[in-house]
């Protein structure tokens, strides 16, 4: 019985990936991803005037201003000129339209409703188009490899002004039911509940942290701030003192410093550097500035003949 359940689930998963994958845009772990050949990017569509900050993956509810955003997961896309085209779906293939179908179109320009010429976008790629009419469309993203001249493309059919969900909710409901049934039978549901209980999670986190604490013991870093205690919004310097566990000063080390606020997912506003080796294990660190109050961590990486270590200095401002 369980064996058959697994086979059925496997079949469903295969089906699922085929059903969800309209050409170049797929859902992966709740994140919408566009695949331009092997290069991937987060893909988001917004209809800011019609739906505010609500995110869409492919189909759009209204003929309205639509914002297509690609956040690169492969750095290579930052160096490739990218162009973006939207055509009316005249292939007759609907959901199953592929690059071959697009290439078979004689007059691509006549079918084009939006075209953004190739451009390099080093940080994030976005285009905006206001759809005049509802209907079926195909998006085509092409990226040119600057080294080989090869063109990679992604094709994604989508619908503007889709009216109903059809049998989708039923299908998804069935899928969830079967998944739950399978988990229940295999005992995974029970395991999942145990795993999710906060105590177990906390213990797990504690265990994971243990090696880090042990690792930080190789070198000891102390810092002083000659211009007075660190305060926010003031550029200042630190004097770092690096010693081994046995109290020997670490001289001539190569030191890198970075840091940030874990609670806000961001780093320092500056990039501090060690500007002077003062000798006897002392180093001058310039360009330190904190711009928010709260909990900060400074991560000091030390490389020397005596070994390598990363020391995290916590501080609250």
């Amino acid at each position, binding site marked *: 019985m369980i064996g058959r359940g697994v086979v059925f689930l496997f079949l469903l998963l295969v089906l699922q990936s085929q059903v969800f994958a309209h050409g170049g845009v797929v859902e992966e772990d709740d994140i919408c991803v566009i695949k331009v050949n092997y290069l991937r990017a987060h893909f*988001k569509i*917004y209809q*800011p*005037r019609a739906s*505010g*900050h609500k*995110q869409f993956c492919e189909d759009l509810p209204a003929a309205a*201003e639509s*914002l297509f*955003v690609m*956040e690169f997961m492969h750095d290579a896309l930052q160096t490739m000129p990218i162009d973006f085209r939207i055509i009316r779906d005249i292939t007759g293939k609907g959901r199953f339209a592929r690059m071959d179908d697009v290439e078979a179109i004689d007059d691509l320009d006549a079918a084009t409703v939006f075209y953004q010429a190739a451009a390099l976008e080093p*940080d*994030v790629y*976005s*285009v*905006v188009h*206001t759809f005049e009419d509802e209907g079926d469309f195909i998006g085509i993203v092409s990226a040119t490899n600057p080294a080989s001249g090869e063109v990679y493309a992604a094709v994604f059919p989508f619908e503007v002004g889709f009216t109903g969900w059809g049998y989708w909710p039923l299908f998804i409901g069935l899928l969830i039911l079967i998944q739950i049934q399978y988990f229940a039978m295999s005992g995974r549901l029970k395991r999942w509940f145990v795993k999710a209980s906060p105590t177990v999670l906390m213990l797990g986190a504690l265990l994971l942290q243990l090696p880090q604490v042990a690792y930080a013991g190789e070198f000891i870093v102390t810092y002083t701030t000659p211009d007075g205690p660190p305060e*926010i*919004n003031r*550029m200042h310097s630190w004097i770092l003192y690096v010693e081994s566990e046995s109290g020997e000063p670490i001289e001539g080390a190569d030191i890198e410093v970075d840091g940030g606020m874990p609670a*806000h*997912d*961001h*780093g*320092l*506003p*500056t*990039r*501090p*550097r060690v500007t002077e080796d003062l000798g006897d294990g002392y180093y001058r660190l*310039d*360009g330190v*500035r904190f*711009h*928010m*109050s*709260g909990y900060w961590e400074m991560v000091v990486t030390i490389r020397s003949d005596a070994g390598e270590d990363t020391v995290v200095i916590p501080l609250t401002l």
Partner: protein
Amino acid sequence: MTTRTLISFVALLAVASAAWWWAHSRPPEAWSDDEVAVLESLWLESLPELPPDPGNAVADDPLAVEFGRALFFDTRFSANGGISCATCHQPERHFTDGLPKGVAVGMSKRNTPSIVGTAYSPWLYWDGRRDSLWSQALSPLEDPNEHASNRLMVIAIVVEDKSYWRMYRSLFGEAAGVDTMFSNIGKAIAAFERTVMPTTSRFDEYVAAVVAGDSEQQAALFSEDEVRGLRLFIGEANCTQCHNGPLLTNNEFHNTGLINFVGEVPDKGRVTGVREVLEHPFNCMGPHSDAVSRDCSELAFTRTGPELIGAFRTPSLRNLENTAPYGHKGQLATLVDVLAHYNAAPDAMIGHNEAKPLDLGDRELAQIEAFLRTLAAPASFAVDAT
């Protein structure tokens, strides 16, 4: 049975309403020592003396202030002869213009930021693409949507105007290369802009009363809603994470997930601005700066990274009720819109919204707004000495 259920339900309701009423009608608690320290840090009295601008040798020269003030209000430095710096930076509107995006010869790319107190900021513009007031002052002159002039035309006007030329020569000497003369003109405008400062608001008077321990005066200055709003501002609402210090800004860059401007792709903000300032010939390390590179620590230690995608400089909140609309494209029309936005903290369209949803109620948002209005106070600036 049903009657008893009904009675206990009504009793429960009565107790809950009584508790609610009690919680909301009590006078606000006194400030703790920690809170007083935070209030003092936001106090205008705590504003340090204006630091020198090593890149601008005439930054604090009274003659440069006078010359710069005249240039600031002069409409001749524009393609149509009708645009001055004050067209968008209007003194009576706290040096902003009341528009979503500035309108001069054409429409500017972003909302007009205030000049008040910007002499304290290491970075200028919403995206920090300039690192001094003097280099910032030059850009709008040549921006085709703003003054739409050019450096040759600007220099020609200064040379031909007897009063301007006299002031220029006594500050900078005889005629020199185009870029040198152009940057000198920026330095004079900057000298005037350095005098544009906030003045004491009702909030500052309130902090003075708190510091003096004068509770009668505190009650006379602030309503209970304003006190509650201030407590939320420095506490639960996390506003002082970025809006800190006496100018209520850290002058740094944050992505707060604002919506795109109608018909435009989202603005990339600081991630683009930092590239521009590092390469700009009028930056602190450039040949026209009076600074030695040792003075340029902000530029030397600045950084970039994906967290700066869609990040914009924190604006000062002083006198903010006179600086509507809000946001780098003026996306938020009123303070109510601003507070609703931070309360919801939606996902950013590009990059990552640093703010977290606050889940405050309408009443609490109204209290924060009431507090923000206590920051109203006009700017002061150098006036015509003659």
